[in-house]
């Protein structure tokens, strides 16, 4: 009788632990940023702000370009086992699907045509970067990162508004650069 009670207590504790573990499948709060990179020291356009210094430093460690400008920024939630499209410019869309793993399937679409599909685990704090060459020795980047819940609750609406307006204002050279991959 005494042992039955102990077993019951152990099962209860295990059940409590199991109940405390949420399922790993989750909706993803994603930020997709379109960045244009150049070595042109004279380039200046008030419509484009320099990217976050920390991110720019990360990019400079890897790539040869010295200046990085944020063209648009989109924030959104990718539902569990579903797909969400992020239109980073008029001609470039990134489709992100949350799949089992948990992983994400990132599909790059240029001018309505699929260009590349990458499936990978996305970890908070990591950057998933799609990049390519552009005209005049410049380059484009789409940087995808998973946001913390706190960050998304504070900023997503404003960021989405900012991103939409900037994407609409993308200059011709940037739009073309974004679609370099789709040529």
């Amino acid at each position, binding site marked *: 009788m005494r042992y039955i009670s102990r077993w019951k207590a152990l099962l209860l504790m295990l059940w409590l632990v199991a109940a405390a573990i949420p399922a*790993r499948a989750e909706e993803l709060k994603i930020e997709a940023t379109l960045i244009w990179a150049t070595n042109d020291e004279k380039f200046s356009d008030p419509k484009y702000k320099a990217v976050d210094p920390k991110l720019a430093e990360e990019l400079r*460690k*890897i790539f040869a370009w010295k200046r990085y400008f944020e063209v648009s920024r989109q924030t959104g939630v990718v539902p569990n086992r579903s797909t969400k499209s992020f239109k980073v410019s008029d001609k470039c869309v990134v489709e992100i699907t949350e799949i089992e793993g948990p992983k994400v399937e990132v599909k790059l679409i240029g001018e309505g*045509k699929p260009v590349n599909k*990458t499936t*990978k*685990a996305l970890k908070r704090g990591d950057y998933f*970067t799609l*990049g390519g060459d552009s005209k005049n020795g410049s380059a484009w980047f789409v940087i995808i990162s998973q946001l913390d819940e706190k960050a998304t609750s504070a900023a997503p609406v404003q960021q989405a508004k900012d991103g939409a307006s900037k994407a609409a204002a993308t200059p011709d050279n940037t739009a073309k650069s974004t679609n*370099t991959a789709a040529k």
Partner: protein
Amino acid sequence: MKRDLALKYQAFVDGELSEREARGVAEAIERDPEAQALVAELRATRTALAGNEPEVTLPETPEFYWSKIEGEIRRRGEEPVGTAGARWVAILAGWRRFLAPVAGVAVVTFLAIAAIKFQTGQVEDYAQHLAEIENLSEHSTSFSFRSGNMFVVWVQDKDYADVDNQVELIDNEDAFQ
């Protein structure tokens, strides 16, 4: 016969009842042969015990007898309980009763911490570094590499891909995997 009634008869035999109660019980006994038999048995037992109670006498005077008991108590109080090893064994035996609950709590704590780490992605997952890349356009090609916390898929036009240009674009060749 009921137990209460039997106890009353015993009290009657021991002379513990009031006069009025004793009179009533005596009348009842006279009417009931079973009660008479019980009372007779109780009286016989009482007589036997009263006549044969063992009488214990001290071999010495009571003062001397108690002084010996006091001395023995004092002596045992001053005597060491046991060796150091025996003391540790006794302490460990005392703690052993906490072993099962502490082990249970430790297991639950471990599972909870592991679950939290797994949930928050603190556990190193080597699958994080694996990626499946598929070129969906016949006009483009791609390659990937990782540097620090940045995973890069570089997409380029096939017509535009030449080695010289590739080297020029990537500053840190060590980053290639």
